[in-house]
């Protein structure tokens, strides 16, 4: 079975872009997204991040949905500034699995490709572990939570590079720890998980995952976050039914998938659907 693996490289020069393109024939199912950028944009620069995002959205748009084993990994040379890392994380941090290539390999196109090819094999088991939590056990794991709207210390941590530098064992331990913390937020009688704003998030049952397979939101980030979480595919149509813990009409201010605030006070809704990428349904 062909497994789609989107391999994105940020800020490649022309030579590296060509070299990385050759991985397509060596990695089955690979979609190489390594757009070449101008010399002054090489590295994790903001223009390079935007160009890569556009190229990825275009590539993902060729398929309407993804199967469970689909993967999205993102590669870049070790950033030179913290702001570069922040910019990259803001754009791709919640959708792709991010890996860095040692800076000693800058301008060494062959060794860079070899490094990625070798490292891809070692991250497969890690991605499998994440997929198990984000896809297969999506109803009991916090990994697919809408990170903007579920307010809790768990999501605060999930917004960081929590899997950085972890091996398979420690990654598994970390995911278990997240699940344990998430379990403590469970409200049995309300059949959901309560966040710090007293909203109840009930994971949708499989038969309720109809309608939009992957709501895309307005921008590239919302689009990729609608399909992938930490490099693994999301279950098509999975969302949370969100309501007030005391069954009152929702009064909260929610964030949309493109970062604007939507106040529900005037809408008099008893519930709203929120997707992992914070897409809100029904729309206003």
């Amino acid at each position, binding site marked *: 079975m062909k497994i789609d693996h989107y391999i994105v490289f940020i800020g490649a020069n022309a030579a590296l872009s060509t070299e990385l393109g050759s991985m397509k024939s060596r990695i089955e199912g690979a979609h190489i997204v390594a757009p070449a950028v101008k010399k002054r944009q090489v590295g994790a620069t903001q223009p390079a991040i935007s160009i890569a995002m556009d190229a990825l959205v275009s590539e993902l748009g060729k398929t309407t949905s993804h199967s469970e084993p689909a993967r999205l990994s993102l590669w870049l040379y070790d950033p030179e500034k913290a702001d570069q890392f*922040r910019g990259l994380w803001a754009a791709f941090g919640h959708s792709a699995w991010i890996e860095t290539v040692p800076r000693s390999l800058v301008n060494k196109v062959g060794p860079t490709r070899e490094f990625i090819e070798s490292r891809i094999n070692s991250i497969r088991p890690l991605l499998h572990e994440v997929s198990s939590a984000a896809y297969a056990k999506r109803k009991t794991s916090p990994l697919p939570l809408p990170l903007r709207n579920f307010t809790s210390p768990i999501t*605060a941590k999930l917004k960081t*590079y929590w899997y950085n530098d972890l091996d398979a064992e420690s990654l598994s331990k970390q995911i278990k720890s997240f699940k344990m913390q998430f379990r403590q937020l469970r409200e049995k009688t309300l059949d959901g998980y309560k966040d710090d704003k007293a909203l109840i998030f009930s994971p949708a049952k499989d038969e309720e995952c109809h309608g939009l397979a992957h709501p895309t939101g307005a921008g590239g980030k919302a689009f990729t976050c609608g399909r992938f979480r930490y490099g693994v595919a999301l279950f098509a149509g999975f969302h949370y039914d969100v309501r007030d813990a005391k069954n009152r009409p929702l009064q909260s201010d929610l964030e949309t998938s493109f970062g604007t605030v939507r106040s529900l006070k005037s809408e008099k809704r008893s519930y709203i659907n929120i997707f992992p990428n914070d897409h809100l349904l029904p729309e206003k």
Partner: protein
Amino acid sequence: MPDQDSLETTTAKLIEDYVQKHWEDKGSVHYLSNIGSRLKREFPESQKVITDGLAEFIRRNPVVKVVQHPKISQKIGAVPLYVNVPEQIEELFAKKASSSSSSDRRWGSYEQAFWDAFIQPIDGEVRYVCVDEAGVDVSDTQPTEIKGKCYEIRAEDQTKELTGVAISERVAATHEAINTWLEKNALEQETFSARKQNGNRRVGGRMDEFFDLFEGLSEEDLARISIPLDIIFKLISTK
């Protein structure tokens, strides 16, 4: 009250700034222990997000590069992301020649009790070091009568267990621990220096002239001087 997200962001930014400034001033790693103490002091709310330790926080928020001394595992520090880590990582732990940091004064000679305070296990959580005109007094119980000024040494300030490591490295690690502690408390090395033992020297004579030759030299220069053992014996026999 700031939410968890903004605490993470602010703390990460402060760490980045501290490390950047330290690198610009001193050209060496900024020890995580020092960053931690500074955060506690200057932004106590950071402790809400540094629940699993500073190294763990930086792992999740890689705004600086963490490096560990290859031989002395408890020496862990951070440098800005743009710094290329050399093959000889210990170079990052060395100081700029022009630096005036207290941690440069590696070969200070301290009162024995003060030196031991960084090696001997603490009976409790805090060790008190009090200094007055009479000298240094070290105690694991809070002094009832405060003479001079007292400072605290905690387990994290001490030289860590260095089983199987050469004596020279243990000495270096203790000097490093002391220098870090002095820096943390904004203290001068001289405050805890061993009193000069000049009493045994005869007044006048060739020996005094000989020792006087070295008076003006710096600690670094003195450390470079080696005298053949037979000459030492001859010098002693002339006393």
